[in-house]
């Protein structure tokens, strides 16, 4: 059929990234990253239940450079998904849909998640001594 041979106009290849779409896809990506983190959480609890040897091997991995990198990524994902999740809940209640508010709340989420990540890691170092 002639219709099927018609080309499809480009979409993601040419559409301009805006705060709206970028924060939305980030919410999804951080959600998926946290899902992987949940697996690690369960393996951590299981290792703790298994005994000190299993636990120390998991802790050893967490302290390696790869483990620390993953933890940093996980904490940022957590705070971003949390803050943007609250922004979503506010929308679901029906508030905050004016474009000015959408942009202001979006930038607030970016700033807050960065600040919370930095604060969490800083506090962690302080506790370690």
């Amino acid at each position: 059929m002639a219709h099927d041979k018609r080309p499809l106009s480009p979409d993601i290849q040419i559409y301009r990234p805006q705060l709206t779409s970028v924060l939305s896809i980030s919410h999804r990506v951080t959600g998926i990253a946290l899902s992987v983190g949940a697996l690690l959480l369960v393996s951590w609890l299981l290792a703790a239940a298994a005994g000190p040897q299993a636990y120390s091997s998991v802790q050893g991995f967490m302290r390696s450079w790869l483990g620390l990198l993953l933890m940093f990524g996980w904490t940022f994902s957590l705070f971003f998904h949390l803050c943007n999740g609250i922004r979503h809940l506010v929308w679901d209640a029906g508030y905050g849909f004016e474009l000015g508010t959408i942009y202001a709340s979006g930038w607030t989420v970016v700033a807050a998640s960065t600040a919370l990540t930095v604060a969490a890691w800083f506090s962690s170092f302080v506790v370690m001594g």
Partner: protein
Amino acid sequence: MRSPLGRARGLGSAREGVEHWWMQRVTAAALIPLTLWFVASLIALTGSDYNAFIAWLKAPFVAILMVLLLIALFHHMALGLRVVVEDYVHSDRAKIPTVVAIRLVCFALAVVGIFATLRIAFDG
């Protein structure tokens, strides 16, 4: 060769979908205080050894919150991943088994996590 309206109407409205949407929001709301508690606890536990961790998790309050966190987390995760799969996977043959598998795996992981927590809480 369907008419455009026939194609748009498809198989009609499923007349459901709000339950999934609602539970996603309910688990999200529950996860706000639970994750904040969890992160704060992790920070407080930095650098502590195995015994300190077990002593922390044995406390009834902590064990209960951990179980609640696992339930809310895996339910929220299963619902969220289902939406992601439905968005990007369009063939029924791939989509339906994947969605079912995600649900079952999340349930199993939640059970494993709860078992581990209760194991520590009750004998440790």
